[in-house]
């Protein structure tokens, strides 16, 4: 018997790290601003003000207008819906896909595992962004396709992570005990292994949301993202990049700041969860 600490760690959970709380506050604030956009600005994201093209920030258009005469403030707000929505959906998809692949691989072991892992190796040998470009180019650029693309390229790391956890858990006594209890393969995997293997995933997922937004912005920047005139930060930065040269800084800077803030928020959440896990 180890010289067990006489106290039992009772109240270890419940309290969030301050860093997690700050991150969550940022992300929620941005998302809330996106949802509340109709009340925050009179302008529609694709509404054209015929009198103002590429006008700097003023009382009417707080963040100015872009080359199409659309209100940048309204577009930055409305884009939060799409960007955060795609980030969450694609990461959720990546987690589900990764789990669906990694869990049975780790559970089966042997040659099944070997072959599966080599396939993952091959997939991961491609640079992520090039792969995303290829998939987006093949599938075409619609909202569901973008979610699918970003979900697909993010799935292999999750598959690896889940598999590694499952391999480590597979020969723990409580899994043998569950096998002795008469559980089926699926029940061993879903009821006993998965809940125990999920912790590291939950730590990585928020970080991954940040990367997903960046990938989306990157795809939009090269023209394979959300098609104009739909408001999306990456596409706005891309379109505004040319204006910056002419001194019209507002069209790219404001969506850039929004993007920066959101990714920072997600990273802080992930960082906090990671610290918390490291303490265990």
């Amino acid at each position: 018997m180890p010289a067990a600490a006489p106290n039992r760690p009772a109240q270890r959970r419940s309290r969030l790290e301050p860093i997690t709380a700050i991150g969550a506050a940022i992300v929620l604030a941005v998302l809330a601003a996106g949802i509340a956009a109709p009340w925050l600005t009179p302008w529609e994201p694709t509404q054209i003000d015929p009198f103002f093209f590429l006008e700097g920030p003023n009382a009417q258009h707080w963040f100015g207008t872009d080359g199409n005469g659309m209100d940048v403030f309204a577009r930055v707000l409305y884009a939060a819906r799409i960007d955060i929505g795609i980030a969450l959906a694609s990461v959720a998809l990546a987690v589900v896909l990764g789990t669906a692949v990694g869990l049975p691989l780790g559970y089966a072991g042997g040659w099944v595992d070997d072959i599966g892992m080599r396939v993952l190796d091959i997939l991961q040998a491609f640079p992520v962004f090039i792969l995303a470009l290829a998939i987006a180019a093949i599938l075409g650029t619609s909202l569901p396709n973008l979610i699918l693309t970003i979900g697909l390229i993010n799935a292999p790391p999750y598959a690896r992570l889940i598999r590694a956890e499952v391999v480590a858990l597979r020969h723990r006594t409580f899994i043998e005990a569950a096998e002795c209890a008469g559980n089926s393969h699926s029940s061993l995997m879903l009821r006993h292994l998965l809940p125990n293997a999920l912790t590291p995933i939950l730590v990585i997922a928020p970080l991954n949301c940040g990367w997903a937004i960046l990938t989306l912005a990157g795809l939009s920047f090269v023209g394979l993202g959300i098609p104009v005139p739909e408001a999306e930060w990456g596409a706005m930065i891309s379109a505004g990049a040319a204006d910056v040269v002419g001194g019209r800084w507002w069209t790219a800077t404001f969506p850039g700041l929004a993007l920066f803030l959101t990714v920072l928020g997600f990273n802080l959440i992930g960082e906090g969860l990671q610290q918390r896990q490291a303490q265990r």
Partner: protein
Amino acid sequence: MTAPLLEIRDLRVAIPTATGVIEALRGVSLSVAPGEVLGIVGESGGGKSMIARTLTHLLPAQAEAQGQVTLAGTDVMTLRGEALRRFRGRSVGLCFQNPRSALNPVRKIGDQLIDRLREHAPGGDLRARAVTALAAVGLRSPETMMGQFPHQLSGGMAQRVMIALSLACNPRLLVADEPTTGLDVTLTGEILTLIARQARDGARGVMIISHDIAALSKVSDRLVVMEKGLIVEEGSTRRIVTAPRHRYTRRLIEAVPDVTTRRRAQPREDGRSVVMAIRDIDVTYPARFGRRPAPALTGVSLDIRMGDTIAVVGESGSGKSTLSRAIMGLLAPSRGEIRFRGKTMSSMRFSARRGLRRYMQMVFQDPFDALNPRMSVEDIVSDPLRLVERDAARRSAAIDRVLVEVGLDPTFRTRRPHELSGGQAQRVGIARALSIAPELVVLDEPASALDVTVQAQLLDLIRRLTERRDRAYLIVSHDLATVRALCDRVVVIDAGRIVEEGPTEHVFTNPASPKTRALLDAAPRLYTDAT
């Protein structure tokens, strides 16, 4: 009486935590004379280890220690920096609980010894001195061992290396903190004797900390009994063992399994149905790269009848756990067959074997590792039940019934494993096994990871269960003493083969195999004449 070598006066250790201050030691005073072996006994959480940790300044960072500790004239509590480092190296030798994790895994044994010598006792041929140190602790081929890594050693060998390391610089005091945890009974005796022998030169003092009063009674001159951070009784080993005064000491002594206690219930006569028939099985673990496959079991045959309680006894590494895993179908024999309820289980596929699971259940050695940390007691206990009882109300009633049966209150249902004590966790493990009324229950060292008094309660529960004779039990153990009162038949296993088998009383009174006799000699018992 000579002046004490180590003197501890009114030592208090408090550890502040999030939930409040834990008073690990609440005013402990004791002394060790040169040439004396002092045993400190008590259960986990009693504060024993804190004494060893205070001596070497290894208390948790936030702990606050007060009191006076003097070792051979040195005031230990005020040591800092370089003086502390030298003191740790030269004056105290400390053997840790788990030797394999206390040795540096990436450095050779020889290098670790030479490091220590060079740092704290330089001079002469360091290598030759290291070899001598290894030979002095009874290691047979010290030259070879110099080039080996810790993972290549068995538990007993690793503890000997640890002792050699502690003694290398000839410290005045040798402290061993639970040095035999995880070792089987034969090795426990050998290691403790080796440690105690270090006081024989008359100059060195030895302090052994253990939860095992039987093992300590054999080797120590004086005993200190600790409970909840206080010394409750102190005296010569002989006096404490023969005439304990404190209630807690008496409890510890009563909990020692007695090798002479016989089974009260008489086995039923023959003619009962055979639940499981094991026919001449071999189990071979697959070879690692570049090694030959190692046979773990060879030619094992065994009949288990309804109502039987059979003990499988052997040293660690003898193959007894492999046998229980083969019985449970967790690994397949490479030869021979296992028939269960008339079906050849050993050749079944996973899904077919699942159908037989409800008739056989297992209780595991480490109660915490055997419970899913994310499930409540209720879910754990009903895990096997879920597959056969679809009706939620009936299932719920069955959970309550089986919890009461193993001595737990039904309010335990909502708890999670980390909220249980070791004894409670093992009861949950037993409740899970009994929940679907199996015909065969395999218990793999069910009490060996628990404190002695808890162990006694648990063995009592198992004894009561087995006396009902409504199912067959197979109990795996390294300790013959614990099984005599529990079992009808004993199977002694050594190096993967059955070396002796027969009715319990027959095996205990007329052991035929030398292995059985060795195990009987090693069985823990209280020694009233300390040496």
